[in-house]
C-alpha cells in the first residue's frame, strides 16, 4: 500500500513547494486575525434582562459563575479566568440574558480585571424580612403564573411554616 514514493534527490522538491507557497504569515495585531465568526469566545451579560435565577451557575462545569450575597444584595460574578468557553450558560438562560461573542483578546496583568459582576436588588420576606429572591425574578415568576401571588412575598421557611399552620387549623392539631 505504498502511497508514498521516495526518489533520489526528491528532497529538492521542497524548494518548489516553498517557492509556490510564499509567505503566509498574518501580521496580527496589525492585520485582522485568522478567526471565524463561529468562534466561541467571551460571554457578555445583559444586566437588564438577567433575573438572577442561577441556572447558569448550576450548569457551569468549572464554577466560573458564582452567585452570592453581599450586603443584602445578590451578586452574579463571572470569573473569566476559569471560564472554559463552552457556552452552556448561553444555552440554558431562560431569558437569554447571556450573549456569546468572539472576544479572545483577554490578556491582562491585573487579576481583578478578570471578574465581571451583575448586581441585583432583593425582595425581603414580608414575615421575617430576610432577603431571598431578586426583584426581577419575582416579576418574571408573576408574569408566568399569577396564582402564586399569595405566597410570592414569603421566603421558603415562612412558606413552609404557614402551610403547616394551615394544615393544623384544618385538621385540628395539638393545642
Amino acid at each position, binding site marked *: 500500500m505504498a502511497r508514498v514514493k*521516495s526518489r533520489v534527490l526528491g528532497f529538492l522538491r521542497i524548494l518548489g513547494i516553498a517557492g509556490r507557497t510564499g509567505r503566509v504569515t498574518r501580521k496580527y495585531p496589525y492585520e485582522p486575525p485568522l478567526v471565524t465568526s*463561529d*468562534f*466561541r469566545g467571551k460571554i457578555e451579560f445583559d444586566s437588564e434582562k438577567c433575573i438572577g435565577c442561577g441556572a447558569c451557575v448550576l450548569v457551569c462545569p468549572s464554577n466560573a459563575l458564582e452567585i452570592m450575597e453581599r450586603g443584602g444584595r445578590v451578586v452574579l460574578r463571572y470569573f473569566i479566568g476559569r471560564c472554559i468557553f463552552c457556552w452552556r450558560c448561553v444555552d440554558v438562560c431562560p431569558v437569554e440574558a447571556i450573549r456569546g461573542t468572539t472576544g479572545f483578546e483577554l490578556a491582562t496583568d491585573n487579576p481583578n480585571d478578570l471578574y465581571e459582576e451583575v448586581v441585583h436588588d432583593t425582595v425581603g420576606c414580608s414575615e421575617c424580612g430576610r432577603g431571598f429572591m431578586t426583584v426581577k425574578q419575582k416579576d418574571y415568576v408573576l408574569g408566568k403564573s399569577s396564582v402564586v401571588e399569595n405566597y410570592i412575598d414569603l421566603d421558603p421557611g415562612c412558606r413552609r411554616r404557614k402551610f403547616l399552620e394551615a394544615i393544623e387549623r384544618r385538621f385540628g392539631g395539638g393545642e
Partner: protein
Amino acid sequence: MGREVVDKYTSVIRGVDRSADIVFKDDTLYTTISPSSLRDLAKKLYWDLGCFHRTCAGVDERSLNGYFAVYHIFGDDRNGLNIVVKVYADPENPVVPSIVDIVPAVDWCEMETRDLLGIRFSGRSEYRLVLPPSWPNNLYPLRKDVPYNLRPKILASSERVGEGATGVAVPIGPYHPALHEPEYFELYVEGERVVDVKYRGFHVHRGIEKLGESRMTYQQVNFLAERICGICGFEHAVCYSQAVEKAAGIDVPERALYIRSIVLEIERIHSHLLWIGVAAHLLGYDTGFMHTWRIREHVMVAAEMLTGSRKTYGINMVGGVRRDVSGEKIGRTLDMLRIIEREFQELVDTMVSVPQVKKRLSGTGVLSREDARKLSVVGPTARGSGLDRDVRRDLPYAAYRDVSFNVPVYDSGDNLARFLVRVEEVFESIGMVRQLLENIPKGPIMVEEFIIPENRVAVSVVEAPRGEDVHFIITGHGRPYRWKVRAPTYNNIPALRVMLEGESLADAPITIASIDPCFSCTDRLLIIRSDGSRKWVSLDRLGCIR
C-alpha cells in the same frame, strides 16, 4: 457476529466455573465468576481463544452490595465482542489472584487498583505506582468514603537520579526541550547503547475519575472528558457518552452519529499531522515540521468553523451533538480537504526522499510481533508490528458501518513502519470525511428526553488517533458511580522498554515519540515511592479524597 460465537464463549466460561453468572447485551458478554477460576479463564481467553486484554478496573461496591469488585475486560476483535469478567473481593481484606504472569499487559492496571482502592493481588510483587511517595498509607482516594477535594498535607518529593542499575543514567525530563509534557525518563547507557529504561510519569494526574463521580453531572462530564487530553479530547467525550448511551439504552439520531464521525476523523487528521511534524523536528528536519504544521492550519480553521473552537470542541453531549453542519460549511470543508490532500502528498513524498530521514527511521526501535501480542499494544504501534487491529472496523460505532476504508498494516515493526501507517491513515481519513459529508442524512441532532437508570454497567471502545480507548461506566444517581478511563498510551508505554533496549542514545527521542505518547491521557494517577521506584497509577483509582 452470530449466536454461535456467544455460545462458544458461554461454554468456555461454564467449563471453567460451572456456577458462573452470564449475561449477553449489545456486543458485550458480562460474567461473574469465583476468584479461584480467574487464572484458568484468563489463560483460556488470552492464549487459547486469541483475545486481547483491554483493561481492568476496581470498584468500591460496598454501598451497593457490600463487596469490592474487580472487572477484567477482554476483547475479541475478530468477532467484535467485549468480555467483562467480574470477581468479588472481601470488604475487610480484599485480595484477588493476580494474572500478570499469564497476561503481562495487566501489570499497571493491577497496581493502579491497589494504589487507589487498596485491593491486594496475590502471587506477584507489588509496588506503588500512581500516588506520590509521601502520600499517606491506608488512604485510598477512590474509595467512596474519601472526598474528592481532600488535600492531605504532604510534601511532594523530587527525583533522585540513577539508583541501583547498571550503566550511566541519562535523565530526560521532566522539563526538556524535546518534550511537551512533563515526564521523566531515565535511560541507562553503556557507551552509546541504552541498556535499561525507568519511567516515572503521572505528573499530569489531576483526579479526573474521582471528579467525574462527585462534583459533576452526566452532561458536565462530557466537558471534563474532553480535557483529559488536548490533542485527542473529542474521542474521550464520544467514548464516554457512548458508554452512557449503551448503559441507558438511548438511541442517538443518525445525523448526530455522522457529525460525531466527521469530527472524530478531522481530529485524527490533525493529530497525525501534528505527530509527523514533531517527528520531523526530532529528526532534525525542521523544514518538514514547518510545512506540515502549515498544512495542519487548514484543519484547525475547518474545525473552528464546524464546531466553534480550534480544539476542545465542546459539541458532544449524551444523546447527540450541540451544533449542526449546514450546507455552506460542507462545501468549504470539502474544498479544504482537497487542498490538504494535494499538498500533503507532495510534502510527504519529499520528506521520505531526504536520505537522513529515511535512514534514521528504518531499522530503529523495533518491536517484534510476539512482544506486541504479549503486551497488547494498540493503534499504529500495533499496526506497525503486524497486528491487524482497528476498532472502527472490528466493533463499529457511530457512523462507521456506512463508510468503506482500508486499515494499513506493516510488518517491519520499526519507526518507519509506524510513520507510514500514520501517513496512510491521513489519506484514509480524508476519504472517509468526504464520504460522510456527501451522504449525511437529514434529521434531528439530539435526543431531547431520556432517563438514565441506576446501576447499569457498560463498556465503550473508540479508536483514538493513538489506539483504542476504553471507557467503563457504572451509572449512578445523576452522575456516574464509577468511571474508568484506559487511554491508549497506557498499553503502549511498557512496550518502550523492549523498543529502547540495545538502541543507541541518539535514536531514543524518535523511538519514544514513535508510539505517539500522550501523557495527559495516561497520567491519571501516578504514584512514586520515596525510595525512587515509581508506580504508575491511574487516577481513577485514586478516586477522591474528601
